[in-house]
Structure formats: C-alpha cells, structure tokens
C-alpha cells in the first residue's frame, strides 16, 4: 500500500463540473486540495448533456428558485468562462399544437425570476433563426447560450492546480478511512496500475453526481437519488444559430442547442436502476422520439446527417416520493453528514445542474471552510477561468490558420501556448475538427490526457463527421510515441473506435452507416486492428 504522506485540507471526489468547481473554489481560498476522479474528467453527466447554458427560462414556471439561480450563474459564466460560452441567445417557440396562452404565463414567470424575455413576432423569429419551424405562432427571445462542459471542467481543474491543488484522474475511491465516526481520508485505486493508495484529509467532499449515492454508501450513509436517463442526438453540422426550445411545460426532446460545429437535440427522461448508470445505451424508441419531436423545432433536422446518440444520467435527489423524476426540484442539495448522519469530516454536494456548478461549489466550500476555520471569501464569481482572461477573439488583423482558429475556440487565450511554428506541428491530426499535432502535444503536456478518450474531450479529436476514421490512428500513433508504448496505444485505439461505434450504432443508416462501414473496412480489413489485439491477448 502506497501511503501519500501529504495531509490535505480537502479531498474532492468526482471530476465532473461540480467536483472541478469545488476543487477550484477550495484552492482559491487557500486550502490544500486533492481532486480524485475514477475515470476521465467529465466522464459522467457533465460530458453527457446538451451543452446548454440555461437562462433559467425552462424552470421559470415550475421552479422559480432554480430559475433565479440559473440566470445569475448564466451572467457570471459569460464573464468568467468566455472561451467556453457562445452567446447565442435562445427562442421559446409556440407551435400550432401548443397553447399560446402559456406564453404569457411563461414570460411573466421569467420576468419575475429576473430573466429577460421578449415576445417577438414569428416573422422576426424566422429572420433571426432561419432554421426554426416556420409554422410557429409565437416566439419569446431569452438569454440562453451554448457552453462546452469539457472545456469548462478542464479550465476549473487547471485553475485549481494553478492554486496549488493536486488532481488525479483514473483514481477510483474504493473505501473511506474512518476513525470514530470521522472520515479521515480515502483509499483509491490507480486504474492504470491497480495500485491502492491512501489519501488523508480533514474534510472529504462527495461531488460524484449520481455515483455520489454509491460513494456515500461506502461511508454507510444513505442518500436517495433518482437516476434519470436523458438521451440526446448529435447532428453533423449546425442547423441553428440560436438555442430553440418549446414554449410549454418541460417535456421530451424540446431543446435544440448549437454546440461548436454540431447541434444537439434532447432529451428524454426515464428513471433507470442505479445498477445501469455506467452503461447507458440509447434505444430505437428514444431515437424515434428525439427525431420526431426535434423536427418540430427545426424541420431541417429531418434531412441532416446524425452523427451519434448518447445518454447521461441526471443526479436528481429525492426530496419526496415523486416517481416521475421530472417534478423534482433541480435545486442544490448540500449535506453536512456530521449533522445529518453523525459522520464528521464528510460533505455531499449534489442535485443542481451544470449551470449552477459554481454556486454549488461555493456552498460546499463555505461549509468546508467553516469546518476548517477558514475565513477567506469566495472569488469564483469574478475571477476568470484560465483561457477566459480576455475576450477570446482578438481581431488584430493577423491572418490566422484554420488550426489556430479552431484551437482558439477550445483553449481561449491559452491557445498562444500551443506551438504551431513548424509544418509538422501545424499538420492536422483531426481534419474534421481542425486539431493539429501542436494542440495534441499541448493537451498531453497540460491537460491530464491518458488516452484517446481524454484527448477527445480536450481537443475534439474524433468528434467530427468521420468519428475517428482518419484521426484516431494518427492520434494513437502520437500518444504511443509520447508514452513509448505502442501496444498500449493499439489497445486504446481499438477501445476508442468501439466507443465511437457505440454512439453511432443507434443512428447507423444512410451516410452515417456508410461512413462507419468505411471505418470498419480500414481498421479491421486493411489494418487488421482486431487481429493485432487478439494476437496480443492470446500471447498473454
């Protein structure tokens, strides 16, 4: 057993946006922090949502508290996370089958929550968003936006580190170190070596989303959560410039968000057993529902290539016994287990939404600071994240390469740290998303990249139209060279392509299927990738 001698003030469990936000806040207040994530950062719900920066309008009618939190955080994120946010604005549209009277209720609720909500003429809505269903009979413009959860999380992790925190991904908490009803630390397995390590801290914060329920169990504590599965579809290119919502009570597949080069329709909402949350698969029925409802928001979705389908699990906390999972407040739940369960040194922060991660982090950090006797104030609402120090696009008139422009969208001001001086560094690894060799080197050196999956989340490698066909082998070769471990890179490549196929399979028809077949032909038929893996496994 490897004992890490350092004693931390705080251990944060969970490398999603909440955990990353908590680690940053704690570190900024001068606490010594360790962030642990069992797989890659953003592996859970953070990496499997719409990428929607809610204005709060969606919750205005049903949950004013959440709506108010959302709009406040929305305005803060525009300033502190510029490079992760695209200020697209959004529409809430009323279709002939919807009740136009709801629009008034909706607008009044928005205004009461402090959300700008302008009723506009349907013709004006069509002019500012040509993709919107032309049959609309009403439209409200609200300050929704698009946000990249991968960038947002990594920026929080990097800032935590800049303030002295340690961050380890691929370290899974296996048990708590408990002494006389006090959590003294955790034992965690290094997923790459299998080694169990001990980490000690005065306070441990459980920020593991839906998995937080299982983490708490390890400390003998029960938290009732509803794992609510939400399925989404990614389309091959952007059909809409603005977020498009339905102006009605929240329902299935009524939000279409433009994200980077693509757009995303979602979601469904179904309760699933906690045992299944590590392997979410999108069903035919879900795809059909997303498509048929999505076409009502933007008819051109029917004639746009679908890249893939995916599903996330919302960590909804059971306040009562509502079985649907929809009417539960998305409010923030911060549990002081010393008070609640008599377990000192242990806090759970859950519920909430990606949108309110910063506020959740603030609440959890306040509690931790109180326990630790730290009086520092929270500055996360005014301090820009790394990469967002200035407005990302500096129009200095200089001619910028495609790779630079694409990278700037991902790394903001940190793009200047990417070396693009030579032809070799400027060469594109991922042609669909404009990821250069230089950007990959930067990500590997600075952003906790251990494999193609984590590289994808840092850079968008393999997220484009070809879903890894051209870039996966190039990127694997680079990683293999950096690690000096080609067999590992080969296995990683096979796993990455399997993961890509998992998302393609539910929408595998038309050009998406042809693309996947060509990919299979190249990797299996021409390169013999599966044979290479089989041989290696056989020789073990």
């Amino acid at each position: 057993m490897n004992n890490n001698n350092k004693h931390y003030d705080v251990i944060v469990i969970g490398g999603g946006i909440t955990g990353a936000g908590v680690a940053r806040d704690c570190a900024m207040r001068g606490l010594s922090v360790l962030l642990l994530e069992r797989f890659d950062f953003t592996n859970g719900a953070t990496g499997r949502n719409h990428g929607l920066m809610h204005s709060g309008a969606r919750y205005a009618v049903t949950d004013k508290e959440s709506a108010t939190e959302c709009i406040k955080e929305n305005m803060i994120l525009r300033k502190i996370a510029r490079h992760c946010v695209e200020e697209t604005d959004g529409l809430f549209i009323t279709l002939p089958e919807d009740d136009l009277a709801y629009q008034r209720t909706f607008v009044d609720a928005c205004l009461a929550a402090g959300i700008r909500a302008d009723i506009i003429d349907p013709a004006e809505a069509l002019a500012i968003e040509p993709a919107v269903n032309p049959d609309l009979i009403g439209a409200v413009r609200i300050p929704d936006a698009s946000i990249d959860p991968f960038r947002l999380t990594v920026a929080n992790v990097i800032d935590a580190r800049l303030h002295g925190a340690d961050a380890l991904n691929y370290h899974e908490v296996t048990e708590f170190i408990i002494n006389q009803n006090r959590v003294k630390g955790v034992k965690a397995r290094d997923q790459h070596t299998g080694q169990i390590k001990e980490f000690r801290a005065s306070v441990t914060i459980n920020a593991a989303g839906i998995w937080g329920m299982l983490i708490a169990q390890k400390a003998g504590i029960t938290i009732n959560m509803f794992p609510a599965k939400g399925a989404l579809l990614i389309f091959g290119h952007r059909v809409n410039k603005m977020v498009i919502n339905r102006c009605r009570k929240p329902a299935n597949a009524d939000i279409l968000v433009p994200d980077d080069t693509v757009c995303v329709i979602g979601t469904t909402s179904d309760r699933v057993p906690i045992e299944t949350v590590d392997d979410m698969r999108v069903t035919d029925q879900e795809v059909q529902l997303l498509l048929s409802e999505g076409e009502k928001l933007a008819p051109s979705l029917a004639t746009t290539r679908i890249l893939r389908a995916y599903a996330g699990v919302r960590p909804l906390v059971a306040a009562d016994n509502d079985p649907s999972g929809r009417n539960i407040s998305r409010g923030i739940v911060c549990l002081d287990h010393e008070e609640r369960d008599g377990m000192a040194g242990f806090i759970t922060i859950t519920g909430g939404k990606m949108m309110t991660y910063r506020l959740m982090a603030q609440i959890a950090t306040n509690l931790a600071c109180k326990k630790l006797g730290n009086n520092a104030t929270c500055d996360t609402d005014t301090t820009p994240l790394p990469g967002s120090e200035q407005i990302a696009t500096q129009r200095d008139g200089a001619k910028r390469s495609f790779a630079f422009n694409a990278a700037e969208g991902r790394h903001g001001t940190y793009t200047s740290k990417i070396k693009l001086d030579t032809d070799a560094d400027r060469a594109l690894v991922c042609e669909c998303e404009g990821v250069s060799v230089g950007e990959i080197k930067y990500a590997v050196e600075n952003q906790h990249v251990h494999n193609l999956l984590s590289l994808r989340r840092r850079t968008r490698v393999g997220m484009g139209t070809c879903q890894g066909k051209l870039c996966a082998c190039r990127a694997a070769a680079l990683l293999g060279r950096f690690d000096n471990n080609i067999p590992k890179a080969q296995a990683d490549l096979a796993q990455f392509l399997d993961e890509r196929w998992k998302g393609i399979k539910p929408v595998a028809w038309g050009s998406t299927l042809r693309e996947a077949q060509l990919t299979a032909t190249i990797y299996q038929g021409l390169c013999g990738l599966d044979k290479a893996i089989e041989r290696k496994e056989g020789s073990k």
Partner: protein
Amino acid sequence: MTKTQLASISDHNFEQCLKCSICTVYCPVAAVNPAYPGPKQAGPDGERYRLKDPKFYDEALKMCLNCKRCEVACPSDVRIADLIQQARMKHHSHRPKLRDMMLASTDLVGSLATVVAPVTNFSLGLKPVKAVMDTVMAIDKHRTFPAYASQKFETWFRKNAEKRQNEFAHHVSYFHGCYVNYNFPQLGQDLVTVMNALGYGVHLLEKEKCCGVALIANGMYNQARKQGETNMASMRKSINQQSRPVITTSSTCTFTMRDEYPELLGVNNDGVRNHLSLATRFIFNLVDEGKVKLAFRHDFKMRVAYHTACHMQRMGWAIFSTELLRMIPGLELIELDQNCCGISGTYGFKKENYETSQAIGAKLFSDIDAAKPDFVSTDCETCKWQIEMSTGVKVLNPISILAQALDIEKTRQLNGVN
C-alpha cells in the same frame, strides 16, 4: 427501424462525404503546394466550420483551380469544387483588384485590344511592359498574352460567311467564345468550313457574351450572372424558335454554361443544357448515327498527342474528340495521361500562382516532350497557351485538325451539299 428513421436522410451534398480523401489525392494543387489545404479540407470539412462561423473562411481557397478533378474522383458524388467556389462567392471580402478585373473582362479588354491589335501585341511582348505588368499588376512576367487578332471573328463572319449560311439544309448556332473572337478567329473559320462541308449552316447567336468563367474565377459573380442570363436567352431563342442547336469549340465555355450556370450562379439553363454541345461531340454523334459522312485527304500525315482538359474530363467528353481524331486515316494519335496543365484560365497568369501553375503542369510537359508529337491537340484554349509556352509544341483544336484533314470537296458531295 421506424418510418421516422427511414425518412431521416441527409439531403446536404457535403454530408455525403465519407472522408476517404481520394479527392485530395487527385488534386493537382495539393500535390505541389502544401499551403493549399486540399479539396476535402477546403470543401466539405471547411463547410461545417463556415456554417459555425464565417471567420473560418480561409483565403487559401483562392488556390483552387476549379479544375473539378476532385469531383471526378469522388465516389460519393460530392460537388467539392462547387462547395469551394460557393464559399468563395459567399465569403470573399475583397473587391477584385484591377488586374483581376482586366483578366476577367475578356469581352471589354478583347474589344479594345483588337482595335489596336498590332500595338497591343507589340507592347505586351516588350520586356519593359512585361516588367511593369509583373510588378504593378502582378501578372507573371514569364507569361505571354495570347496575341490579339486584328479582325474579330464576328467581323470576318459577317463579311465573308454569313450570307451563304442560309443555303444549307441543316443549321446550328455557334457560341464562338472570347478566344475565337478576339485572339484566334482561325478556329472559328475552321469550324464554319467543317460544318458547311457536312451540310450545316453556321449562325451567330443573337447576342453572345463571354460565358463568364473568368468572371467567376475573379470574384465578379454578378457580372457573370448577367452575362449568363443574356447567353441563355439567346440560346433559348436559337433552340426553340430557330430549331438550331448550339455548338462550341471551347470545353471550358461549354462546361461553364452547362454546369456552373445552374450550380454556382443560379442561372437556369433548362431546355438549353441538352442542346448545347462541343462541336466534336456534335459531329461524332452525327457520324455515329449515319447522318453525315466524312472523306479525308490521302496525303494527310500527322502525329498528334491529345491532352484531356480538366473540364473535358469532368464532362466525360474527351472520348468524342479522340474518336473523331481516330477517324482520320493519316493521323497517329497518342493519348496523354490525364494531368492538369496548371494554367486554369486566368489562374496561371497571376504572379502568386506562377510557380504552382508550372509545377502542376510539369508531368504533362515531360510526357509531351517524350511523345515527340507534331502537334498537341486539346479542346481548351487556355491549355493551349500553357502547353505552347511550356513545351514549345504547337497546339491545335481537334476541329482545326479536322479542317486540315478533310477532303472538303468530297465531303460536301457525300453530304449532298451543292
């Protein structure tokens, strides 16, 4: 799979791209100039990013020759070159430079130049003038402008040929193009000779404007569209009211009017497209269908290397020209490998493109040197300039070769011409 899913099929042409990259392999520019991102990146890949944000429009797209070799290569029928041209049309920010306007305005400059042809030709050939054009206008000093004729083809036609055209049993209209009109009326005269021998009267269109290919290449889209509309109106009249199909002697003009008009400029050519053909294809079909007969001179001997112009390859029409040439008994035909010559209209005239242009053509030039032909033959006038400048071998349009090889008298008799 449900009805909804079955109905969900992309109708975006650029989304049919499977990223196989064959287009980039066949791109003559990407092969010699690493600064050009290649058709896949500039076309379907770039299109996604341009839809996200117009700032992703890359000025490097100007390096595209619009040769369409990418489209010929694409197994998924993606109109890659059209995507690139459309992006240029949509996003280009600069107004055309004086040089580009001059290179593009073939009609206007041609009309002015033919009036003072000897002076123009003399001065365009002078070293100081070339130096000024090189430095001030950025027209490469290695280039020689095609000589301007002292008499326009149209003028010659009206004076010497027009009257007797009504005597024939069959009739066609001839879209001669700028090159024949201002630089090389001989080709137009050859066409009249051949068609008359076959029993066809040749007529000018009521109004002919430059097809617009040079305007498109130089960013003057509105002007191109206007000229396109004029040409289509004249051709409709010729086809519908006078029952005269339209023939041409330039592959690029033909391709532009048949395919670029609707795809790029939005000029409707319905009802015209199928009646607009290159003369070699028109004549080949007449012979093939037994409607005309050809008689050749017995003393004709010529070794000819045929070069397939890019737009001929895109149309798939080279076979009509080569099969027509093969009918000539004394002609020895060498079919050159399909390689771009590098000039692409006005592209190679620009100083910034000169090196790329010559590097692209290098393979073709060495093939021609090795073939040692008497003449090179091609259906494109700008290929002709490039090959003549770069190899020193003279280039003839297949129609001019036909005019030389035909026994005109005997052909007239065979086709019942008095």
